[in-house]
């Protein structure tokens, strides 16, 4: 069986700077794959390259075994969707939730908007009361739910999640993570999840790739990580840092 998503030797340059340098990984259908690394390690850029928001300078990206056309087709966007890091920045400040959600339907000419929007809101745990609010009337977690609802409206198979909870309080993070897990189960989605938090990634994913300065450091399974079966010093540092402060 082919992988839902395969990234082979992806390289991305911004001018002379290699933001992503020869990164490869495969994600099998229905699984969840994690990308971890510090700020600037190129995690977001990988995701953006997949959806065509960042130029790829080398390597290939295969979706269901087929290479992607540039620019991406409309059909692609019904297959792959993305949720962004910043819930404050990813919603149009002058559009109500309703308008935001109606947009993808309008673009793809999908009818039956009323019902779909209502259902999508239900699915992400936002009732009717939120439908006509503006983003500034929502909390961070609620916004992130709207963003997820928007991504789901097109019924994609693959969902790319770029640090979906890093801007949220811990308690809200738990809610959003739970929601994502539940959705994945219900819809058999494939996830690629980016985070700088090892705990979040191991919680959500079966496999993960550690990145540093644009390069893949190592790929390992969540169990391996939990069992401290770590191959590189860098991953070990990350691991240590995520357990809290230790006085020498």
């Amino acid at each position, binding site marked *: 069986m082919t992988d839902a998503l395969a990234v082979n030797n992806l390289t991305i340059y911004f001018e002379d700077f290699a933001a992503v340098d020869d990164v490869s990984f495969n994600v099998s259908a229905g699984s969840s794959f994690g990308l971890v690394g510090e700020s600037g390690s190129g995690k977001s850029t990988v995701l*953006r390259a997949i*959806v065509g*928001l960042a130029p790829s300078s080398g390597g290939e990206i295969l979706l269901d075994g087929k290479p992607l056309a540039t620019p*991406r087709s*409309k059909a*692609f*966007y*019904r297959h792959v*969707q*993305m949720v*962004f*890091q*910043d819930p404050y*920045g*990813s*919603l*149009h*400040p*002058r559009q*109500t939730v*309703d*308008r935001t959600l109606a*947009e*993808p339907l309008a*673009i*793809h000419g999908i009818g039956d908007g009323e019902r779909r929007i209502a259902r999508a809101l239900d699915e992400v745990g936002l009732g*009717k*009361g*939120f439908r*006509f*609010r*503006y983003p500034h*009337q929502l909390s961070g977690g609620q916004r992130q739910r709207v*963003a997820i609802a*928007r*991504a789901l409206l*097109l019924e994609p198979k693959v969902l790319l999640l770029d640090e979906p909870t890093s801007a949220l309080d811990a308690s809200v993070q738990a809610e959003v993570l739970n929601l994502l897990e539940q959705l994945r189960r219900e819809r058999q989605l494939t996830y690629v999840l980016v985070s700088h938090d090892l705990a979040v990634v191991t919680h959500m994913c079966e496999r993960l790739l550690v990145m540093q300065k644009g390069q893949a450091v190592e790929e390992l399974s969540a169990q391996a990580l939990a069992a401290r079966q770590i191959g590189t010093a860098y991953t070990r540092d990350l691991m240590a840092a995520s357990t809290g402060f230790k006085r020498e």
Partner: protein
Amino acid sequence: MTDMAQPQHWRAWLLSDRPASRRQARLGRAYAGWQRFTTNKLAMVGLAIVLGLVLVAAFANVIAPYSPVEGGDLRTERLLPPSAAHLFGTDDQARDIFSRVVYGSRITLFVVVLVAIIAAPIGLVVGTVAGYAGGYLDAILMRITDIFLAFPKLILALAFVAALGPGIENAVIAIAITSWPPYARIARAETLTIRSSEYISAVKLMGASPWRIVLRHIMPLCVSSLIIRVTLDMAGIILTAAGLGFLGLGAQPPLPEWGAMIASGRRFVLDQWWVAAAPGAAIFIVSLGFNLLGDGLRDTLDPKASDQ
């Protein structure tokens, strides 16, 4: 009792953070903006002045006691000082200045509205398209903008009026032509920041076409800063129109255009000060009104300012 309760009810409905319909959401947002606006006293003064202008223009024929173009007897009623019969005195064609000022508000309103609806959209389209498209299109559009910016404004306007022939419509076109470049720049600068924001990325991910993104997602965001800027520029537009009138290239006589009135009144400024003073004061007050309004709108519409 119900009278008292009713407004409260409306207020709650408007300010609800759970609007039940698009309309309620929109009205609520407008109402919140209005509330913020009303706390700004100077802005309210500005709004009152601008509304006043609109009212005076609408009811000019009711308000003005005399015809604005037909004067009285040249021999006896020329250059009369202000009196009960002629509130602001009469001008050198023995016309009642008050009536002329009143009717002049129509022209001013006409100029202001027309410039706004010509220049602002041009600037908006050029700026957003350049900013969003980037690359060559951006370079070309911005060069054109630069060229227009590098011109002395009044001289460019003069040249256009000279080319098109004098008259208030042509003056409007000339002013519009000279005033769009700053709008384009604002719109472009704003587009550049909006373009890289995640909500635009999100819409792209929905598969939206560039036109859709520019028209439905970027433009609405640029509009508010543009409105602010246009309002603040209104004073300048009025003054430029007056300047053209002053140089004899604006409205045709006997149209009671304020700038042209000052220009003809300026000959009497040393002895019959009222001839130039009345339209001068009118220009000043209306400009001030637009400026105050613009300041207030900035506080209301600019999310950054309102956060403070």
